[in-house]
C-alpha cells in the first residue's frame, strides 16, 4: 500500500469504529429504555409466588440467577457488547495502520494519543467484561469514548509525521503505553465511581438496595465501589510505573529525573489523588461515596494533564502536534 492508501485506510478504520460504536451506544441505550418501561425489576422473590388469574392459581417458578428469562433489553445489550468488540478491533486496526503509515509507534501527537487512549478505554472495559457481566456499563463507556474519538478526528487530527528528536527513544513505547492503559483503567474507575454515586443516591431515596428505575440493572452502589477499587488497585501500580519510566526517560533526555514540569506535576497530582483514594478505602467514614468522589477527581486530574498541559501550558511535554 502506498502512504496515502495507508493513511486513508487508517482513517477509514477509525471512522468505521466510531460508526460501530455509535450503533453499540444506541443498542445499550435501547436496553436501558426497555428496562425503564418495566416499573420494577422481576425482583426474584425468595419464595414461590402464586399469581391469581381468574380464580386459577398459577404456580410460577422463581427465576434462577442464571436461567432467568430474558430481561427486557437483554438482547439489545448483548448486541451492544458484540458491536463494542467490533469497534475495538476496527480501532485497533486503525491505530496499527497509523503506526505503519508513520513508520514508528503511533504516539507522536495528540490525535494518535487520543485514538490509542480510546482503544485503552475500550480494551479495559472489554477485558473486565470477560469475567463479569458489564452490559449495564456499556452505555457509560461508549458515550465518553465516542465524544473522545469525535474530538480526536475533528479538533486534534494531525497528519502523520516523523517524531521530534525528543520523542525518539524506546522509552516512548514503554512510558506512553503504560500511561494509555492507565487512562483506560482510570476512565473505567471514574465511570463506576460516578455510577455508584448516582445509584447510592437513588438507594437512599428509595430506602433499599433493590431499587427500581433506570439504575435497577446495575450492581448495588457498594458493589460498584468494590469494582472501582479493583480497577484502581490494578491501575495505580501501573501509573506509578508510567511515572517512574517517565522519570528515567527525563533523566536521559533533560538531565534530571524530576523537574516539576507541568506534565510531571499533574502526573504527580493524579498519583497523589489515587493514593488518597486507596487510603480512603481503608478509612472509616471515607470508604463509600467520598472515596468515589476522590476517584472521579483523580480522573479529572488526568484529563487536565492531557488537555490542559498539552495545549495550554508551556511545558517540555507539549507534543500535541497542533
Amino acid at each position, binding site marked *: 500500500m502506498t502512504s496515502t492508501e495507508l493513511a486513508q485506510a487508517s482513517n477509514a478504520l477509525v471512522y468505521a469504529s466510531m460508526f460501530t460504536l455509535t450503533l453499540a451506544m444506541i443498542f445499550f441505550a435501547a436496553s436501558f429504555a426497555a428496562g425503564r418501561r418495566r416499573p420494577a425489576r422481576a425482583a426474584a422473590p425468595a419464595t414461590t409466588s402464586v399469581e391469581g388469574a381468574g380464580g386459577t392459581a398459577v404456580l410460577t417458578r422463581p427465576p434462577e440467577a442464571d436461567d432467568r428469562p430474558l430481561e427486557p433489553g437483554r438482547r439489545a445489550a448483548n448486541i451492544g457488547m458484540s458491536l463494542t468488540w467490533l469497534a475495538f478491533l476496527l480501532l485497533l486496526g486503525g491505530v496499527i495502520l497509523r503506526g505503519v503509515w508513520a513508520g514508528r509507534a503511533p504516539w507522536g*501527537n495528540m490525535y494518535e494519543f487520543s485514538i490509542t487512549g480510546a482503544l485503552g478505554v475500550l480494551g479495559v472495559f472489554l477485558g473486565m467484561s470477560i469475567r463479569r457481566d458489564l452490559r449495564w456499563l456499556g452505555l457509560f463507556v461508549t458515550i465518553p469514548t465516542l465524544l473522545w474519538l469525535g474530538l480526536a478526528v475533528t479538533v486534534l487530527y*494531525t*497528519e*502523520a*509525521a*516523523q517524531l*521530534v*528528536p*525528543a520523542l*525518539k*527513544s524506546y*522509552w516512548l513505547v514503554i512510558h506512553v503505553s503504560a500511561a494509555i492503559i492507565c487512562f483506560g483503567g482510570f476512565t473505567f474507575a471514574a465511570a463506576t465511581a460516578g455510577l455508584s454515586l448516582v445509584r447510592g443516591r437513588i438507594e437512599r431515596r428509595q430506602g433499599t438496595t433493590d431499587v427500581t428505575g433506570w439504575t435497577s440493572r446495575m450492581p448495588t452502589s457498594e458493589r460498584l465501589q*468494590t469494582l472501582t*477499587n*479493583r480497577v484502581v*488497585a*490494578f491501575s*495505580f*501500580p501501573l501509573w*506509578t*510505573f508510567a511515572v*517512574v519510566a517517565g*522519570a*528515567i*526517560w527525563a*533523566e*536521559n*533526555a*533533560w*538531565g*534530571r*529525573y*524530576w*523537574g*516539576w*514540569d*507541568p506534565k510531571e*506535576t*499533574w502526573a*504527580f*497530582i493524579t498519583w*497523589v*489523588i489515587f*493514593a*488518597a483514594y*486507596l*487510603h*480512603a*478505602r*481503608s*478509612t*472509616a*467514614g*471515607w470508604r463509600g461515596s467520598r472515596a468515589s468522589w476522590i476517584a472521579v477527581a483523580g480522573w479529572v*486530574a488526568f484529563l487536565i494533564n492531557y488537555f490542559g*498541559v498539552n495545549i495550554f*501550558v*508551556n511545558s517540555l511535554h507539549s507534543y500535541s*502536534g497542533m
Partner: protein
Amino acid sequence: MTAPADSTASDPTRAGLGGEAPLPPLGSAGLLRWMWRQLTSMRTALILLFLLAIASVPGSVLPQRGGNPRRVEQWLTDNPTSGPLLDRLGLFDVYSSPWFAAVYLLLFISLIGCVLPRVGQHWRAMRTPPPAAPRNLLRLPASREVDVRQPPDAVLDSAAEWLRSRRWRIRRGETNGVPWVSAETGYLRETGNLVFHLSLIVILVAVAVGGLFGWKGNVIVKEGGGFSNTLTQYDTWGGGRMVDPSRLAPFSFTLDDFKVDFERGEAQRGAPRLFEADITYRAEPGAAPEDTKIEVNHPLEVEGAKVFLIGHGYALHFVVRDSTGEVVYDDSSVFLPQDANFTSNGVVKVPDSDPPLGFTGLFLPTAAIDEVRGGFSTFPAADDPLVLMAAFRGDLGMDTGAPQNVYRLDTSNMAKVGLDSLTPGQTWQLPNDSGSIEFAGIDRWVSLQIAYDPGKELALLAAVVAIAGLSVSLFVRRRRIWVKAARADAGSTLVQIAALAKAEGADPGADVTELADHLGGQDAASERSAQ
C-alpha cells in the same frame, strides 16, 4: 499513611483512630501522645495527601524559577502589583517553598509514625501461628460442610498438605475432641505495603542526597567554541551544600559541528527532526581527544556527570572595522530565539572602536516582512536569512563594573547611528564615517546542561522496589481458612470448611470451594438445609 485497602475492622491498631478523636487526657505528655496519634492517623494522612495535591497546582500554572527563570522575570514585569505579592508567597518557587516542604515533611512524619510500629506488629504477626478455629465454622460467611469417606485425621492431613503446597501457614489443634487445621496466607500483602512506604522514604533520602551532593550547570557553546568544566565557564551553575565547586571533574570539549534539520513537509512543518552535536572531548587535560556526538536522548557521560543537549540557536558572525579599515571586532554573537521559527534577538558590543559601537539585531532565518508584524521568520532553517540591525555610538556602560547582560544593549548613554538590513556577505558602511559592519556568516550555538546527581541510582532502586511492594500489597489477598473434621455415623467423616477475607477483594468462597473439591466429598450442606 497506612495500608491501602485493608479493612479497618481487621486492624486493631486503627480502631478508634478512624472514628471520633478521643479527648486528650490531661497533662502535656498525654497531649503530645494525643497529637502524635492524630498526626499518624489515616485521616490526617488523607488530608495531607489532599493538601499535597492542591499545593502542587500553582507551580504548574505560574512559571517557576527552577524551570524557567526568564519567564518568571517576564511575569513579574508584566504584573507589577500582584507579581511581588505572589513572589513573597513563594509561588514562583513552589517546590522549594517552606509551605510545600511543610506539607510533604508532615506527610512523611505521619508515614513514619504509622509504618514503623506496623513493621514491628507485622514481624510479630508473621511469627505467630494462625488463630485456633472458631467454635461454629458454619456461621462464617463463606463456609461449607461435606461428607468424606476417609477418617478425620487423613482428611486433615490431606487438607494441610494441600494448603502447605499453596504456601499457607498451618496450625493444627483440637478443641473439645474435634481436630482442626487453621491456615493463613497473604502475609506478603502487609510486607509489600510496608516495603512500598519505606521505599518512599528512601526516595526522599535519594532526592536529598542529589540536592546536597549534586550540581547542575548550563552553558551556551558556539560552533568552533570550547568548554572546560570549571565554574567560571558556566552561564549558570547551582550546586548542593556539600559540593566543592573548585573540584569539578576536569573534562573539556569543543563543539565541532551542530547538525539540525526541520520538517519540510506539510504536516508539522518546521518541527525539529534532527539535532546532533559533534564534539571532541578530553576526560582531563592532556588526555587523548575523543570524537563523539551528543543528541537528545543520548547525553555524553563523563566522570559521572552527563552532558545534555537542551537547546540551540543561531550565532551570527560579524566583522566590524573602524574608519581606517582596521578590524576592531571579529566574532560571532549568540542570538536568542523568540519563537518556533527562530526569529532571534542579539547584540554586538564593540568597546575597542573609538567611540565604542553597539548594535542590536533581529535575525530572520527565513525572512518575511509584513506591515503589521514587521520582520519575522517563517521557517526555522536559515533558508533566506536577513538581519535587521540598529547601530548605536557612545558609552556601552562596560566600564562601570556593574554586571552586564550580554544579550542586552544599554542604549541610555548612546546615540542612534542608523538602521539597515543585511544578508550574509553584505557590509554596511555606517554614516558619518563611523566605520563598517560586515555580516560575515551564520554559525550555530547549542545550549548544554551538565548535571551530576549522585542520588539518582538510589532513587531508581527505591522506585523499583516501591513498585514491586505496591503491586504485591494490592494483588496479594490476606485470608484465613479453617477445616474441622469429625467422625459421623455410617463410617463417613463430616468436614466443615470456612474461610475469611482479611482484605478487600479476596474471595473466601473460592478458597472454600477449591479445598472442598480437593477433599472430594459429597455436599452435606444441601441435605441439611433441606431438612
